[in-house]
């Protein structure tokens, strides 16, 4: 796959500037790569290492710690079914079984056509709406097997593209920090007293 495209390199440079220490931008840049390609490729990680003056091994070391970074290609839609305690009590495991059956794959696998990746995940903070799932990190609450089947149809038909962007896209609004409004990153060796403190 690819290194970061020129417009993403511009975005990356802008993000790096917000932090007092460049390495803090590592996770945001990995998200940017995943947004571009749907996964985080070795080429993208090498490119990020160059941008942050790290070694590729340091980048892989961080990326591999976090569940969300996919170091191999995944489906266009990553379906995360929660089976943690509140969902466990209210039908989460049965929902996962249903999902495995209708998709014809086990949890952790991708359908042969590359459309769906199925995962059973740990608590996603929607416990009062159990059983719940996420598709590309967009929630569905109190999901029945019928709801699940309809969701697959909607995703396949492209009807809910406005709600569920491709895997890798998280917030669709980016933080803007206009130069004239920014206070600026504060490096750790900048010991100045804050102007407003007595």
């Amino acid at each position, binding site marked *: 796959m690819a290194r970061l495209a020129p417009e993403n390199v511009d975005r990356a440079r802008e993000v790096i500037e917000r932090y*007092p220490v460049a390495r803090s*931008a590592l996770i945001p840049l990995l998200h940017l790569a995943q947004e571009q390609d749907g996964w985080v490729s070795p080429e993208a990680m090498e490119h990020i290492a160059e941008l942050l003056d790290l070694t590729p091994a340091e980048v892989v070391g961080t990326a591999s710690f976090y569940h969300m970074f996919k170091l191999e290609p995944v489906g266009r839609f990553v379906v995360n079914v929660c*089976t*943690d305690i509140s969902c466990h009590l209210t039908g989460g495991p049965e929902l996962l079984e249903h999902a495995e059956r209708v998709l014809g794959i086990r949890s952790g696998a991708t359908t042969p056509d590359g459309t769906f990746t199925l995962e059973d995940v740990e608590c996603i903070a*929607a416990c*009062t709406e159990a059983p719940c799932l996420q598709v590309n990190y967009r929630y569905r609450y109190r999901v029945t097997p019928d709801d699940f089947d309809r969701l697959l149809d909607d995703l396949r038909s492209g009807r809910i593209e406005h709600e569920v962007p491709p895997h890798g896209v998280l917030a669709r609004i980016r933080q803007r920090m206009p130069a004239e409004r920014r206070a600026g990153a504060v490096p750790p060796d900048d010991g100045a007293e*804050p102007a407003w403190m007595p």
Partner: protein
Amino acid sequence: MTTIVSGRFDLDEGWTLAKYEETGGYQALRAALDRGPGDIAEEVKAASLLGRGGAGFPAGTKWGFLPPGKHPYYVVVNGDESEPGTYKDRMLMERDPHQLIEGILICCYAVGARQAFLYVRGEMALAQERLAGALNDAYDKGYVGRSILDTDFSVDIVLHWGAGAYIVGEETGLIESLEGRRGMPRLKPPYFPAAIGLYGQPTIVNNVETLANLPWIVMNGGQAFADIGAETSRGTRLFAVSGHVNRPGVYEVDFGTTTYRQLIDDHAGGVRDGHQLKCFIPGGASAPWFLDEHLDLALETGVVGEAGSMMGSGAVVVMDETTDAVRACLRMVRFFADESCGKCTPCREGTGWLEKILDRIVEGRGRPSDLDLLVDVCDNISPGLAWPPRMTTICPLGPSAVSPVMSALRHFRGEFEDYIDRAEPPELAGMPGVRVEISA
């Protein structure tokens, strides 16, 4: 009953700047800027605001640990809500992002921080989107950034998100992650990042709900906040009630005086119709389980602690009599085994062992000696099996895995024994293809 943080949850588009300003938003910031940082810090101290993330440490006291003059100070907001059963910070971020932003500004102003980082859990795309929109609007309006409201107060709030790791909710793990590393907790001491935190500088790490209380405290006074609730638990708190109840939901109740019975029956509509309570988790998966006899306990830090558990992150999970205690226990242990960062041996190895033993019990391959073995592994993770737990690890994740195991074993030992009694003869268990009929 007072509503402090959830007032805009049900407003139409309550997350927009227009709606926030219309309902009193950013007035607390203006008031704070008039009064001066020392005054605001005192107000928060007077409120006795306990941290709402899990550990429950008083926010004002935490701020007081900053070593004078060792600038720069940083503020890091912990929005990495991931404790099983917990759902409240995401609601605060999605439904009232400006309230949180105003709280962050008040905190930065009071402690003297010139840069803040808002760390949102990676999986929360909508919260990230709402916060990005809210911050953009707040920058445009002059509430955040350089010379806020034309004063000499300047601070950037950098929106940052994680990528899926429960352990990053631990404050030193959060800092490691924010520095672009694997989110493994740091060796202690120092116990508080207020001494050595982000980039080695003094850092305040506060939970989302904790900071969301600040605008109210500034507007109404620390004393008014402290007047709500009980001696050691003041103000209100958000509790998520989930599991086998009629009306699962997130409820804001008076802290310290409301009881579990009121929370479960009056707010959440009671145990689902036709069923009885078996047990409930009073404060997230890390908390030891409570029974019927604990229902009348108040949601008060000391009371719950003395009864052998904790309110943790405000997550109440109700289980009725149909619940298989062994499987519920396995599910929670699997969580901790999956999420152990691997830094400390008792947690890395212990949680894995617990999962393996419970797995084989549930799969019908349990051995009579397994129950003692479970206790032994728990004791190795947290010696003495006491409450509060003794630690052999640098963060509480290991001891957290002990809670469901010891709770289930203490209260529902018979269910484990039933699984083991039904198990295949141990010498044959696990050997594929071998089945022996044993005649009576």
